[in-house]
């Protein structure tokens, strides 16, 4: 399992973040992002995942993050402050399964090995 700090990701482009995450997950790692991804990066990660699904090799990812706290304020929009991501866990679909999730807690079951 790799816990990736907000500082490491903040200097990376969206594509670099997605490539880093997918490479780790395809190698069987569970990735925990301190600050998560932006909504646009999340959807691009799903898009990239779809292009890399292969029969009997990689069936996709399990990704879990919390719902956004609230919509950005008018001032946030004026000054271009985007909604920040929240802590996110991403892993291979065949190794991680969500047991329960609500606004405040994500419970997952992680399988190690086959």
């Amino acid at each position, binding site marked *: 399992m790799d816990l990736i700090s907000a500082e490491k990701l903040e200097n990376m482009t969206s594509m670099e973040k997605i490539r880093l995450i997918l490479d780790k997950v395809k190698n069987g790692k569970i990735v925990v992002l301190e600050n998560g991804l932006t*909504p646009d990066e999340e959807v691009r990660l799903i898009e990239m995942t779809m292009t890399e699904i292969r029969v009997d090799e990689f069936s*996709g990812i399990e990704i879990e993050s919390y719902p956004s706290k609230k919509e950005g304020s008018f001032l946030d929009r004026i000054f271009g402050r985007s909604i920040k991501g929240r802590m996110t866990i991403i892993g291979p679909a065949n190794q991680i399964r969500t047991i329960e999730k609500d606004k405040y807690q994500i419970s997952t079951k992680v399988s190690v090995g086959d």
Partner: protein
Amino acid sequence: MGFISSLKESLGSWINRIFKKKRAKIGLYGPPNAGKTTLANRILHDWTDGETFGEVSPVPHETRRAMRKEGVVINANGSSIELDIVDTPGMATKIDFKEFMAFGLSEVESKKRAKEATEGVIEAIKWLDDLDGVLLVMDSTEDPYTQVNVTVIGNMEARRLPLLIVANKMDLPNASPARIKAAFPQHSMVQISALEGSNIDNLYQAIAAHFG
């Protein structure tokens, strides 16, 4: 994003709200088997001359290509709105062909369906860039905290586009629209049964109010 472009985007959004347009391109989004195509067919049944979007099936990912119908006029709240409706394939983060074999499909059919389903998810994501709003269809009998729901809502909030949550399948005994409302309290929600058409007039009123 620069200050000037953010300001222009914000002003554009507010001007659009003040001078409400009466035509909108809306997408039906949600996880597989939430009832998107059943709802799309219901809307066409109610507001066109018997057109349909496509087949529905208990096997996930029955819709694997986005389909669009233009010029669907809905009358509600004493006014009318013309919609371009896009029925998108179910969004997912994983697709395993073995899941389809459990529904009785052959291995060859299942692998083909899985391949097409991955393409469908990509198509659904691409459509997000070309819409005026989204109807996010959720299955009221399922846990609403799925990543697909969280991601679609996050994207609509980030893009400042209107979103209406449709709590579908309220005809089923274990449906719990209240659970959906509690999960995403900042967004409007309408509970319906697209299959039976129950409460559908409330949905049309909400569509007119949200996207008109």
